C-alpha cells in the first residue's frame, strides 16, 4: 500500500525519496498476499496508475522529474539519465536502458523475495516439525515416567511380599523347632513312664513265677507224702509224658557240657564267620579284577583313538597335545605291564585311575574341538550357499506341494467316481442303459443261440412229421399186406382141393409176396 504515493508528495522530492524508500521498505512486507497484491498492483500499475504517474511528470517539470529520477537511480547505484537534448526532450536510449536496468533490479529483487519466501516456508515447516516432535517426545517422556513409577510401585509391593513370606517362614521354622522340642520332651517322659511300668510288670511276673513254683513244690511234697500209687492231678506243674525217648536226628549220642564243648562251639562260630568273609572277599576280588581289566581295555582304546594317525586334525595346538598324548600313551603302555604285576598296590591302582581320567579328559576335549570345527565348517558352507540352497529348497518345496495337491485332487476324483458307480443311480433310464451295456454281448450270444435252437426245433418237427407220415404209410401197407395174406391164405385153404392146377398161376404173385413176408 505504501507503493501508492499521492501527488501531494511531489513538490518535496527529497522528503519524498526518504518517505518513498521507507515506504518501499515497508512494501517488502513478509505477508505473501500483500506482496502478491502489491506485485499485481505493480503489474497493473502501468494502466491504472498511468493516470497517477502522469501527475508526476508533466510537460513543465520534465527536468525536475529527470533530476529526481537521476537522484533515485543514483541512490540505487545505476547510471542516471542525462538531459542532453535540445528543447528538453529526452533521448529514448538511456531512458530505455535505465528502464531495463530498473526492470533487472526489479527482477532480482523479486527473485530474492521468492527465495526468501521459500526459505521462510521451509523454516516454517521445520519449525512445525520440531514442535511436533517436541510434543511427541514430551508425551513419551511423560509416559515412561509413569511406567517407571508403576514398576517401582510393583517392585516395592513384591519386596513387601518377600518380607512377609520370610517372616512367615521364620515363624514356621520356630514353630517346628518348638514342636520338635515338645515331642522330644514328651518322648523322654513316656520312656520314663514305660520303664517304670515295665519294672512293675517284671516284678509281677517274678511274683507269679514264684507263686507257681511254690505251688508246684507244695504239690510235689504233698504227692511224696501220700501214697505211691495215688495218682494226683499234677495239673499245676508242667511235665512231659512221652512213650519212649526218640533218638537224636543225627544219630549220634549226646555229649556232656564241658569247657571243651564251649571252646568247640566258639571255634565253629568263628570258622563260619571266617568262611563267609573269605567267600565275600573272593567274590569282591574277582569283581575288582574284572573291572580293572575293563578299565585297561578302555584305556588302550582311548589311546588308539587319540593317536595322530588320523588325518582329520588340522589345527596346530591340537597337534601338540596329541604328540604329548602319544608320548604319554607309549609310556603308559609300558606301564601297564608293570601294573599287572603290582595289582594290589595302592599306587598302581591310583595310577591306573589317574591315567584313565587323563585319557578321558583328552578324549572329551578332542571331541569338543571336532564338534566346534564341524559347526564352523557347516556355518561357512551355509553362509555361501545360503541363498542358493534356500531358494532351491523353497522351489523344491513348492513343486512338491503342487504335486501333492494334484495327487490329492486325482484321488478325490477317483473316489467320487467310484462312489457314483457303487451307489444306486437316481435316474432309472441311465441305470437301465448302464445295465444294458454290460449285458449286450451276452444278449447277442443268447439271440444267436435262440435262433439256432428254433431252427433245430423246426428241423425236428419236420422230421417228426415225415416219420409220422411214413409210419402211417407203413401202417396202411401193413394192413394191405395183411389183407393180401388173409386173401392168399383163404385161397390157399380153398385150394386144398384137387382143383389146384387151375388156380396156381393166379397165386404166383401173392406167393412171392408171401414168401417175402414169411421170411423175416
Amino acid at each position, binding site marked *: 500500500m505504501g507503493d501508492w504515493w499521492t501527488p501531494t508528495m511531489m513538490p518535496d522530492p527529497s522528503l519524498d525519496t526518504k518517505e518513498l524508500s521507507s515506504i518501499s521498505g515497508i512494501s517488502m512486507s513478509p505477508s505473501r498476499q500483500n506482496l502478491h497484491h502489491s506485485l499485481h498492483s505493480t503489474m497493473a500499475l502501468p494502466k491504472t496508475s498511468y493516470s497517477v504517474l502522469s501527475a508526476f511528470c508533466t510537460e513543465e517539470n520534465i527536468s525536475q522529474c529527470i533530476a529526481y529520477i537521476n537522484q533515485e537511480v543514483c541512490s540505487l547505484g545505476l547510471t542516471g539519465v542525462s538531459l542532453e537534448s535540445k528543447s528538453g526532450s529526452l533521448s529514448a536510449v538511456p531512458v530505455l536502458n535505465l528502464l531495463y536496468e530498473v526492470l533487472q533490479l526489479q527482477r532480482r529483487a523479486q527473485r530474492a523475495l521468492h527465495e526468501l519466501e521459500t526459505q521462510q516456508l521451509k523454516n516454517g515447516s521445520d519449525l512445525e516439525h520440531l514442535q511436533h516432535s517436541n510434543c511427541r517426545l514430551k508425551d513419551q517422556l511423560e509416559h515412561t515416567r509413569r511406567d517407571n513409577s508403576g514398576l517401582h510401585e510393583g517392585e516395592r509391593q513384591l519386596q513387601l511380599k518377600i518380607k512377609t513370606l520370610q517372616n512367615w517362614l521364620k515363624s514356621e521354622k520356630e514353630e517346628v523347632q518348638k514342636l520338635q522340642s515338645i515331642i522330644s520332651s514328651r518322648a523322654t517322659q513316656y520312656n520314663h513312664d514305660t520303664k517304670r511300668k515295665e519294672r512293675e510288670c517284671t516284678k509281677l511276673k517274678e511274683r507269679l513265677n514264684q507263686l507257681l513254683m511254690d505251688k508246684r513244690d507244695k504239690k510235689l511234697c504233698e504227692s511224696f507224702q501220700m501214697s505211691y500209687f495215688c495218682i494226683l492231678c499234677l495239673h*499245676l506243674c508242667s511235665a512231659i509224658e512221652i512213650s519212649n525217648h526218640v533218638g537224636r536226628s543225627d544219630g549220634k549220642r549226646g555229649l556232656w*557240657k564241658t569247657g571243651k564243648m564251649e571252646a568247640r562251639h566258639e571255634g565253629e*562260630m568263628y570258622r563260619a564267620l571266617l568262611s563267609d568273609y573269605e567267600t565275600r572277599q573272593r567274590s569282591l576280588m574277582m569283581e575288582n579284577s574284572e573291572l580293572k581289566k575293563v578299565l585297561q581295555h578302555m584305556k588302550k582304546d582311548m589311546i588308539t583313538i587319540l593317536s595322530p594317525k588320523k588325518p582329520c586334525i588340522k589345527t596346530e595346538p591340537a597337534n601338540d597335545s596329541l604328540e604329548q598324548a602319544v608320548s604319554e600313551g607309549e609310556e603308559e603302555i609300558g606301564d601297564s605291564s608293570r601294573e599287572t604285576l603290582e595289582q594290589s598296590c595302592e599306587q598302581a591302582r591310583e595310577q591306573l585311575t589317574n591315567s584313565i581320567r587323563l585319557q578321558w579328559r583328552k578324549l572329551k576335549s578332542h571331541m569338543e574341538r571336532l564338534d566346534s570345527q564341524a559347526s564352523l565348517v557347516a556355518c561357512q558352507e551355509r553362509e555361501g550357499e545360503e541363498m542358493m540352497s534356500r531358494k532351491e529348497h523353497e522351489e523344491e518345496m513348492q513343486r512338491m506341494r503342487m504335486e501333492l495337491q494334484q495327487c490329492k485332487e486325482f484321488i478325490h476324483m477317483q473316489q467320487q467316481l467310484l462312489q457314483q458307480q457303487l451307489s444306486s443311480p437316481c435316474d432309472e433310464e441311465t441305470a437301465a442303459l448302464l445295465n444294458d451295456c454290460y449285458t449286450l454281448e451276452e444278449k447277442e450270444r443268447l439271440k444267436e443261440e435262440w435262433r439256432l435252437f428254433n431252427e433245430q426245433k423246426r428241423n425236428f418237427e419236420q422230421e417228426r412229421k415225415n416219420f409220422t407220415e411214413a409210419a402211417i404209410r407203413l401202417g396202411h401197407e401193413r394192413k394191405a399186406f395183411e389183407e393180401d395174406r388173409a386173401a392168399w391164405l383163404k385161397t390157399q385153404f380153398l385150394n386144398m382141393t384137387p382143383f389146384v392146377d387151375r388156380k396156381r398161376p393166379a397165386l404166383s404173385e401173392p406167393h412171392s409176396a408171401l414168401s417175402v413176408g414169411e421170411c423175416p
Partner: protein
Amino acid sequence: MNFSEVFKQSNQLCKVSPDGKYLATCVQYRLVVRDFNSLQIVHLYTCLDPVMHMEWSSDSLFILCAMYKRGLVQVWSLEQPDWHCKIDEGSIGLVSSRWSPDGRHILNTTEFNLRVTVWSLCTKAVSYIKYPKACQKGVDFTADGRYMALAERRECKDYISVFVCDDWHLLRHFESETQDLAGLEWSPNCCVLAVWDNCLEYKILLYSLDGRLLSSYSAYEWSLGIKSVAWSPSSQFLAVGSYDEKVRILNHITWKKITEFEHPATIINTKAVVFKEVEKRPVVGSEDLSIHQLTVDNSLFSTQSKYEITQLPAQVPVIKPDPDRANPKIGISALAFSADNRFLATKNDNMPQSLWVWDMQRLSLLAVLEQTAPVRCFVWDPRRPRLALCTGNTKVYLWSPAGCVSVNVPVEGSFQVQSLFWHCSGSSLVLLSKEHICLCGASVASFCLQ
C-alpha cells in the same frame, strides 16, 4: 491247571511236610495226614482239644499240635503211629510252641512271656530261658539250624542271646542298642543278624554272629518307622519297609542305603506295566434261571475277570488311614523277595488293592497289579520267579515276568481264597478258604472224596 477236591480244615492249619511228601491238616480235634500226590489219608490222629497251632518237624517225622487253652502240646510220629508224647505246661499257660531246627526239641513260651521252656524228646533234660521278650518276632533260627537268636528284656534294656541249637549252650549274650526291640532276623547266610526297633523309632542294627555291631541305619526321626523287613535269599540286600510308604534297600558290603522305592499315587515311570483286574459279568438269559442251573452251575454267580494293561500315567486307588488310631493302615507291611533274588514284591497298606513288583537288577519298578479287592496274601514260588496272590474272592492270581493271569477256582459253592502257599517243589499251590483247602497245580490228582 488242575484243581483237587475240597477238604475241610480249621484255623487255617494246613502244612506241607518239609520233604514235600505229606500234607497235614487239622479239623478241630483231628489231625489228618495225607499223601500229597494221591491225597489219600495216610494217618489220622486225635488230640485232646481243638488244635491252635500245628508244625512239622524239620525231618518230616513228627508233627506238633499245640492247644493253647489247655496248655497242652501233643507230638505225633509218622513212622510209629502209636508213639505218643504229651507236654502239659499246667497252670503256667502256653502262648506259643515251636520246633527246634533239629526236630528233637520243642520250645514253649509260657503265658505273660515268663519263660521259654526247652523240652527234649531225646533226653529227660529240660532247659529254661528267662525273660524272653514279647514282641513281633523275638526268636529266630539260622537257616542251617545251628544257632538261635532270642530277644530278652531285663531292667528295661534289650538283650540278645545267641544259643547253639546242638546243646542249648549260650554262645553270646549282648545288649542291643534298640529302645524297644520289635524283631530280629538272621540273614540267609547265617552270619548277620538284623535287629530292628519298634515303630516309634526308625532304627535297624546289624550284628555279626559273634555279637559285634557291624552297622546301624536310621532313615529319619520322629515319624513312625519300620513296619517290615526282609532279607534277599543271597543275603546281598536287606529291604526295610516303613510307614512313610517307602522301601529302602541296604547292601551287604557297606550296610548303607543303595536305593529307595517309593509308592506314589500316580505312576509315571514308563518302563513299568500296570495290570488292572477287570471283572466281566456273564450275561444271563431269563430262561436259564432254573433251580438245576443255580445249584450245579456256579459260574452263573461267579464273575470272570481278566487283566488289562492301563495306559500310563496311571492312578492307584488310595485309602487314607484314620490319623487318630494307633497302628495306622499306612506303610509297607509286606515284603517278599523272589527265590532267584531278581524281584521284590511289596504291599503298601494305604493302597491295599495294589501289589508292586520291583526289578532288583535294574532297581526300578517293573509291574503294578491292581486288584478289585484288597490283597490278602502273596507268595513267591520257591523255585521260579512266579508270584501267586489272592484277594479273598474265588480267584487265584499268578504273575510272572511274562504276564499275569487270573484263574477261577472251579469248586462247587464258592471257595473264597483267604490265603495260599506253594508246595516246596513249586509245582502246586495250596489254597485255603475259611473252612476248606483246595490244591491246584499241573500235576494235582483230582480225586473223589474218600
